[in-house]
């Protein structure tokens, strides 16, 4: 693990994606270049109203400019404040934290399953895979949300040349229904290939991906979320139960876990 650093950074770019989604680019962060997909930064909000930090997966980095991008949806008190930040405002960042995804072998086909606000680390994963020489056509990116407006950064994903499969609960874009349907269909068709699953999103979705992995004996990894008071492993507040018994800390034993390891609650 790389030593996390704690630094004041500036908002150098803010984009208002639609429907309460925002992208913030923060810089300079000296830890930027060492950040790997799946890792997160722990952000202190500039208000003592919110005492604890909030965790955000890194969505992209620019190692030269030492930039870190996060993409989030306004959800509660903390993300509300974050959504009001303006260019030039400063934010205290602690990171990089957590265990990243392991890159799949270049011959493997990556089946990526993103639910709602779980897509940023997976977009980062796909980007880095391509950078490392993975064929974009070997990346199947399933992206599901409640409705069309909940799917953001589509043009960015399309530009990557990956195979994008959209789905929405209400059918307003892509396949109608939960993302997991098209995923299972796809897996069944390609069981003879070397596949690797990657998932991040709501717990229900993660549980379903976990079950698919076990059912079809496909290895892979899931990025989990939890309430994280510290983010660095010292409070034991963020644990999830393991199937083998006992608990693991999402912040430092995860957030990325192998399929089949965590007992995902819903």
């Amino acid at each position, binding site marked *: *693990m790389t030593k996390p650093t704690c630094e004041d950074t500036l908002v150098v770019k803010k984009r208002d994606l639609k429907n309460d989604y925002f992208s913030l680019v923060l810089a300079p962060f000296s830890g930027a270049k060492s950040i790997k997909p799946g890792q997160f930064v722990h952000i202190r909000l500039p208000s003592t109203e919110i*005492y604890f930090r909030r965790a955000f997966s890194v969505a992209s980095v620019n190692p030269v400019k030492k930039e870190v991008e996060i993409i989030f949806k306004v959800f509660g008190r903390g993300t509300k404040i974050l959504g009001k930040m303006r260019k030039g405002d400063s934010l205290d960042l602690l990171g990089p934290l957590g265990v990243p995804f392991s890159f799949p072998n270049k011959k493997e086909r990556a089946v990526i399953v993103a639910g709602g606000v779980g897509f940023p680390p997976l977009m980062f994963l796909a980007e880095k895979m391509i950078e490392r020489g993975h064929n974009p056509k070997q990346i199947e990116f399933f992206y599901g949300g409640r409705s069309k407006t909940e799917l953001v950064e589509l043009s960015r994903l399309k530009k990557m040349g990956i195979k994008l499969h959209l789905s929405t609960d209400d059918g307003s874009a892509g396949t109608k229904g939960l993302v997991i349907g098209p995923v299972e269909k796809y897996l069944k068709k390609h069981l003879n290939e070397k596949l690797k699953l990657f998932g991040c999103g709501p717990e229900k979705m993660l549980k379903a991906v976990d079950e698919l992995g076990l059912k079809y004996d496909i290895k892979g990894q899931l990025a989990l979320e939890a309430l994280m*008071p510290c983010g660095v492993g*010292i*409070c034991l*507040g*963020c*644990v999830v139960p393991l199937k083998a018994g006992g*608990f693991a800390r999402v912040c430092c034993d995860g957030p990325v876990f192998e399929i089949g390891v965590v007992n995902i609650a819903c």
Partner: protein
Amino acid sequence: MPVDLKCKIAGVEFANPIMTASGCAGYGEELAQIYPLSNLGALVTKSISLKVRPGYPPPRTVETPGGLLNAIGLANVGIDRFLNEKVPFLEQQKTKVIVNVAGSTIDEYVEVCSRLNDCSCADMIELNISCPNVNEGGIEFGTSPKLTEKTVAAARKVFKRPIIAKLAPNVTSIVEIAKAAEQGGADALSIINSVIGTAVDIDSWKPLLANINGGLTGPAIKPIALAMVSGVYRKCKLPIIGIGGITDYKDVIEYLLYGATAVQVGTALFVDPSAPLKIVKGLKKYLKEKKLKSVTELIGKVRR
């Protein structure tokens, strides 16, 4: 002229009065990745029990106004793994180590303390008496003067270096408990552990902690802890380690003025793992501004 941050408790000298609070810095490994532990007055370990404890299921924490509610359930590796896996690391750190000890019977306390007696790495032990006593229907050791005295006395017999009793705030008279600990042979007192609290989700009607009740910590409890430190300081001679809601050097000064010799930082580490370093800096600056030579000149100096 340089200012002196050193302080001494029961003969043990600390580089500065800032320690980490039990359960808020693990066994030091994670913090050591961020800065050398020699910056701390002491590292206080998570509570160590006889057997490994997985702890309570999640959710284990809730954010509250100015505080944190936690129900971790004393999750820890147990004394065996502590000695085998954690002590080798701690021995290499250039800081004092205080091992916090938990038990559900007096025998368990005694067993853990006697194992620690042979471990020179443990400069002191801190007895967490905010644990339910399984032999007495689950009442906390620390809510009964008699059990407090007995537990401390039993630990005293087997542990030869200084013993700190860590008191719980959920009592009618903390002074009475402090005196019982003194009677039992404690060398110092840590005041306070977390305050009992709870919270419930108004949508699901389920408590926000799997264990229902938890411990309230953080800035919210500072006034409560300060009053307890103040009360004990005036009625009991043992040195006091003040705990509760310390976020910056100003909080530390409040504790020292009310009679603490040193302090522990808990919840604030979650927000800023480097808080102790910033506090040390702030303390130095304050002492210079006030033209004080040593941090010990503040102890008990509140103007009543």
